[in-house]
């Protein structure tokens, strides 16, 4: 069983805290992605799991055993580095078999395993080449092959796709997912790209400033963010977030963004939000796809709003419309046929079933 457990993990670099106590349980065979901005501590956490960094406090367990003092080579893990770290003086075959050769496995076994993995990754013809003769995508696959061939308990990925161009990145994302489905090894994957996180993960762990903001299935994080940070981090284009005031008139709640723009709060939520009416420091959040062009609306809690678009970005399958409300730039995803023009006042439809109310001070989504 290859579950990974982090308990109150802390890392300080000379008095500067990098990881401030995180707890995480990763189940056997689970694909977990640590995602967050630069400096949030995700790579440090990964390197502590690998044994490449000393642990200042807390514990790491792999397969139920505490591994704090266990050197990397005895942890039965494999790692794919951001810069691949392929041994430049060895061929692809030698790179992939290095770990097995250190364990002194019989030669046929080694050849068999390398061939099998090369087959999975489609690099069978490259086995005699040296790394400098390979393209970026090929090197990345060799790095993965080196990890897979050792059949470890845990795979660790440190931003493996960030050095590839956009198209290749999309392709390799799918490859990685396919490999995971085939090989089914517990995986901890670090990236700063939330799209990668959402598409690859069984569970996404959003980190910020050394702490876990939220951990959960991609859809949960997307539709039910727990904190302001997660709400703004996940999703592209990002969620529209702006200051608001919660007004209560005659038992009904309204969210007011500015003098002209206000929405009625859906009835189901009135009970939940009533306590915050009149409170300061409230934020309103609504994803761009819930701000569409005006269309016949029969579903309840959809409310028209008039805006003056500043910029439109035709994307082909939709047109992004940017406008300002309350001093904040906001984005709406509209049907291209709606033909919204910059400067021409137009009506958008807001679906308030998906609105979020956030307390700015605590960062909590209410």
């Amino acid at each position, binding site marked *: 069983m290859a579950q990974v457990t982090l308990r109150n993990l802390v890392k300080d670099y000379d008095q500067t805290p990098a990881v401030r106590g995180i707890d995480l349980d990763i189940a056997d065979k689970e694909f977990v992605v640590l995602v967050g901005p630069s400096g949030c501590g995700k790579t440090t956490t990964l390197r502590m799991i690998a044994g490449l960094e000393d642990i200042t406090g807390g514990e790491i367990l792999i397969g139920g055993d505490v591994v704090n003092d266990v*050197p990397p080579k005895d942890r039965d*893990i494999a790692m794919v*580095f951001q810069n691949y770290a*392929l041994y430049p003086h060895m061929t692809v075959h030698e790179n992939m078999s290095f*770990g097995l050769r250190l364990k002194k496995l019989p030669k046929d076994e080694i050849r068999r395993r390398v061939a099998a993995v090369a087959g999975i990754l489609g690099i069978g013809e490259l086995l005699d080449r040296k790394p400098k003769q390979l393209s970026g995508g090929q090197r990345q696959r060799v790095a993965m092959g080196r990890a897979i061939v050792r059949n470890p308990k845990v795979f660790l990925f440190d931003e493996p796709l960030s050095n590839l161009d956009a198209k290749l990145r999309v392709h390799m994302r799918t490859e990685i997912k396919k490999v995971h489905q085939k090989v089914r090894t517990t995986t901890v994957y670090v990236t700063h790209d939330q799209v990668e996180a959402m598409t690859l993960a069984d569970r996404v762990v959003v980190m910020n400033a050394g702490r876990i903001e939220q951990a959960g299935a991609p859809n949960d994080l997307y539709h039910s963010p727990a904190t302001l940070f997660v709400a703004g981090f996940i999703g592209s284009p990002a969620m529209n977030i702006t200051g608001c005031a919660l007004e209560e008139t005659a038992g009904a709640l309204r969210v007011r963004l500015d003098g002209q723009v206000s929405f009625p709060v859906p009835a189901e939520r009135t009970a939940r939000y009533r306590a915050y009416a009149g409170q300061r420091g409230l934020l309103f959040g609504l994803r761009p796809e819930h701000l569409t062009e005006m269309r016949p609306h029969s579903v309840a809690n959809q409310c028209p709003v008039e805006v003056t678009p500043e910029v439109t970005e035709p994307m082909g399958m939709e047109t992004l419309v940017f406008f300002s409300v309350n001093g904040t730039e906001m984005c709406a995803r509209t049907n291209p046929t709606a033909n919204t023009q910059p400067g021409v006042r137009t009506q958008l439809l807001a679906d308030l079933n998906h609105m979020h109310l956030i307390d700015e001070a605590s960062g909590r989504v209410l």
Partner: protein
Amino acid sequence: MSASLRKERRAALAWSYVFLVLFAVIFLTPPLYMFITSLKTSAEISSAKLPWWVFHPTLDNYSALLTSPAYLTFFRNSAVVCVAVVAITMAISIPAAFSLSRMRFWGSGALATGVFLTYLIPETLLFIPLFKIFAFVQDWTGIELMNHWWILIVIFPTLTVPFCTWIMIGYFASIPKELDEAALIDGAGYLQVLTRIFLPVALPGVIAATIFAFTVSWADFLYPMAFATSIDQMVLPAGIVSTLIKGDVFNWGQIMTAALLGAAPPLVIYAFLMDYYIAGLTAGATKG
């Protein structure tokens, strides 16, 4: 490219070749002249007919030197000293460079800069105090140091170690730490990381440093002149200068042959390993 640019380019190219040929001639004339002279008999030299050409080439000078016990002694002394010095230099420099470039300890940054600075303390400053120091050590311990070639094995590393360490620090630092880490995760112990991953990748730097150490030891003139002054203790540069120029009679044919043969090892190394040679040179100053 426009016609005017092309014409400009062609003119610039032509002038470049002109000057390159000119400088090549200037730079290569002395060694060429050494070679021409080495093929001449004494008679031809003193006749001074046409110094720049050989009319009756002979290999007598070469055979005389290669059978001269004195010259062969010089050669042997030089060879032994240089090989020993290179070995010692590498034994000191490689671990030091590894430690200073990849491992952190208190003062390692300052030490690295300090290493480079000591290279700037010239031998002409040190040779006199060293003379006294070794004389003192000899009196005190009775070990025969002065006027023996093996003392050079002790002194030459001061010339080679600082710069070799500096060269290799540059090379070692450019090897990504992730290679070590990948090897550690693949299951290698520290020693295996060093021998199977690190050294093979760092080999160009090591070769460049080795060449540098050899060349400097082979060519040094001051320390041998000060420390190894008896004929049978001399190394090549000092030997040639001191013995073949006796009194007023200069056997120029032999002197030039001796000089040419003395210059041969560095030249041969240079011919075969030119890229490493140059890399060693540029490593110091352009290391960023």
